[in-house]
């Protein structure tokens, strides 16, 4: 199963990088169930599970600060915290693990013990992102299913939802009507924005990758938002031709990393996450520029947009571009920083 997915993505990747809509004749891929949602169908002796935990702790501790010195990866203390979360997701009653003296007790787990060893080995040795290991990412107040082929939503991106919240509170008319999340990935922004808008709003969540679209649909269903979030497959605004000029808002976390930086990324990212969602072309601006033009034609007057960027330099470039090359298209432009103080988002309103 896993190998077929790997080969699928390797076949699709060249297609994606040419930025043409992927044509996929096969049935849509079936999303994986996150570990914490699987039934606790397996049993292990408490002592065996404790032995696994002790082994995993040793593995985590032996990492020290090697990864963080190498490429900014996780250090031991973070890995140990992740290990606790893995236990939380995999074990039906995690508290049992910290009990002593019940040597004979059995514990219900959601994966075979052998798989637990394999999962943690992948985390440490292959630097497989923790979120792929457990099949989910806690993002804002959501728990989103993620898997290989889908970008893991970043904490920074949570801020876009707050920006939308402010925008609709300042202009309640924006709340009622259509919004778009472009390059939705796991569906994170689309789902969170729909929850902010409330019953009167609808979100069109777009992604080029059929794997991402399938995962986004699964997440939409998990939050019972089928009526308010529609997932469409295609490149950026292509699948939205029918609603041109009708959008109240556009949000996106597009690929924005300059191509030359891709190979030096943290191993979790460069080895495991979809390059489609990361590589923004020579200066990382290709998709952002495309989005700015798209937003200008797709938004209603006074419609709102918020885009994530690579940081200070790119935010300024995007702002300059809009002001100079697209004069008169947008107003009330702003650069907003993330919680690390990095100028991360560009927002504005259609004139």
């Amino acid at each position, binding site marked *: 199963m896993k190998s077929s997915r790997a080969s699928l993505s390797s076949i699709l990747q060249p297609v994606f990088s040419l930025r043409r809509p992927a044509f996929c004749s096969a049935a849509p891929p079936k999303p994986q169930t996150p570990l914490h949602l699987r039934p606790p169908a397996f049993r292990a002796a408490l002592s065996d599970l404790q032995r696994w935990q002790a082994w995993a702790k040793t593995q985590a501790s032996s990492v020290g600060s090697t990864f963080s010195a190498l490429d*900014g990866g*996780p250090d031991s*203390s*973070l890995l140990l*915290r*992740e290990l606790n*979360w893995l236990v939380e997701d995999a074990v039906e009653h995690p508290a049992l693990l910290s009990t002593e003296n019940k040597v004979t007790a059995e514990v219900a787990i959601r994966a075979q013990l052998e798989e637990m060893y394999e999962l943690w080995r992948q985390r440490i040795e292959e630097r497989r*992102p*923790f*979120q792929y290991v457990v099949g989910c990412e*806690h*993002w*804002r*107040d*959501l728990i989103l299913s993620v898997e290989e082929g889908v*970008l*893991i939503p*970043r*904490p*920074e991106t*949570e801020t876009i939802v707050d920006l939308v919240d402010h925008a609709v509170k300042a202009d309640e008319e924006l709340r009622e009507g259509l919004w778009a999340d472009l390059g939705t990935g796991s569906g994170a922004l689309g789902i969170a924005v729909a929850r902010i808008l409330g019953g009167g709003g609808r979100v069109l969540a777009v992604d080029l990758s059929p794997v991402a679209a399938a995962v986004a649909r699964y997440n939409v269903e998990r939050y019972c938002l089928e009526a308010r979030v529609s997932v469409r497959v295609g490149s950026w605004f292509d699948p939205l031709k029918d609603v041109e000029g009708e959008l109240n808002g556009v949000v996106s*976390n597009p*690929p*924005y*990393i300059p191509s030359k*930086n891709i190979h030096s*990324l*943290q191993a*979790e*990212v460069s080895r495991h*996450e979809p390059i489609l*969602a*990361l590589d923004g072309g020579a200066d990382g601006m290709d998709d952002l520029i495309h989005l700015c033009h798209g937003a200008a034609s797709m938004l209603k007057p006074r419609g709102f947009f918020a885009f*994530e*960027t*690579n*940081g200070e330099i790119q935010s300024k470039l995007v702002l300059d571009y809009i002001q100079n090359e697209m004069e008169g298209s947008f107003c009330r432009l702003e650069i907003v920083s*993330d*919680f*690390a*103080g*990095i100028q*991360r988002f560009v927002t504005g309103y259609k004139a």
Partner: protein
Amino acid sequence: MWSLIQKRVCRKIQLHSSIIRSCLLNSVSEHQFYYSSSPACNHTAPRSAIGAKKFNGLFSSFDAKWRGSSFMRFLSSQAAAEASTSDGLTVGGIIANNWVIYDENESDWKSHAAAIAQSIHLIKKRLRWKKLISKLEVLSKELDKPDLWDGPSHAGKISREHGSVVGKMKEVNAFEQELFEHIDMIKLAREENDAELESESLNALLVLRRHLKEKELEALLAGEHDLCPCFIEVQAGAGGTESMDWASMVMQMYKRWAENRHFRVSAVEEIPGELAGIKRATIKVDGDYAYGYAKAEVGAHRLVRISPFDSNKRRHTSFASVAVIPILGDDFSHVQINESDLRIERYRSGGPGGQHANTTDSAVRITHIPTGVTASSQNERSQHQNKASAMAVLQSRLDQLEIVRQAQINAEHTQSLTDINFGSQIRSYVLHPYRMVKDHRTEYEVSDPDSVLQGDVDGFILSFLSASLDKDIEDD
């Protein structure tokens, strides 16, 4: 237990028509009996508590009327008075008799009665009975004002407070009454030579004695916010790895303590030391009276031992300071926090972030700029939740500052637990050259540091709470 006695009483009543007569006469004055011992009442008729209680049903319609509007006022004016046995023995009287209190196993009713009287006395003292009575009067007057409900939130507060005061007083009064019922019963049994009834009553007295011993402890936790959950924060003192290790031992001690008490414990923040231990950590402790107990631990905790981190095996003294912050409920008017007064940062920044990094670390630190108070959270799985959790800590910190500020303004406030300086040394844990844990405030000590470090802290907490509260009352 009551049904048993009730059965016995019914049999007795068949035998003693004279008692029935007195019961019928006196059930009318039941509430006076409960709450008053005015001399006039005492002399009009010999009263029987047992009869009064048992015949309650017969007079229920009358009772209902009695319980109407006049009841609260009646309670407030009469609560100061003491109940007594049929021959006029009161709690004060029992204490004045100086009956010897033997071990619980001794079947001596006087010993039980004396222990119970002492407990009642202590509970009343801890509840500040006299203040409670005057508070009740003030609240009752307030409740009687016709325009009270013009301000519903004020009215709600007054009525809740009133209810709580009445509840406390009724409970203690009921204990007194039960005590005298049992004593009367024992006397009756002796008159009748009914050994079975006597032993039943004696047993009931013992049950009451034990129950009141527990209540004594509960009365220690009568503080306004004692019932709340709380945050416990441990910070390593100066001294590098040794004191960071000590701080993590202290944190571990409280985690175990809380778990033993069946409180829910969750980690909010933990800043590990470079080599071992923690620089600082915060846990949330949720359960009834978590704050009431934990507040006794505020201060500096001192460790003396041969440091495992010293290659020369020298003896080291290190400190860890403990802060306890109540998490106040919705009925408390929280300090208003303006979003614009906050600076929210990722705790561990660095690197370009965004798509460059895949990290599960979404720790957040919030600074309240006007006060400089900060709070952080790192143990949640999303930034949003870390922010919410840090905000909760920040809110509690600011609320606590406000409580202290109010208390300083409030002239009534003398010395209380909130005044304790976080830096003042409250307890020493000595592992070398001898082994002992000693509380400097109460002189309470234990010769087995391991058990204390395993979470057995209750002895220290309770001895401190009773010592400080009882001292407080004497200061009044």
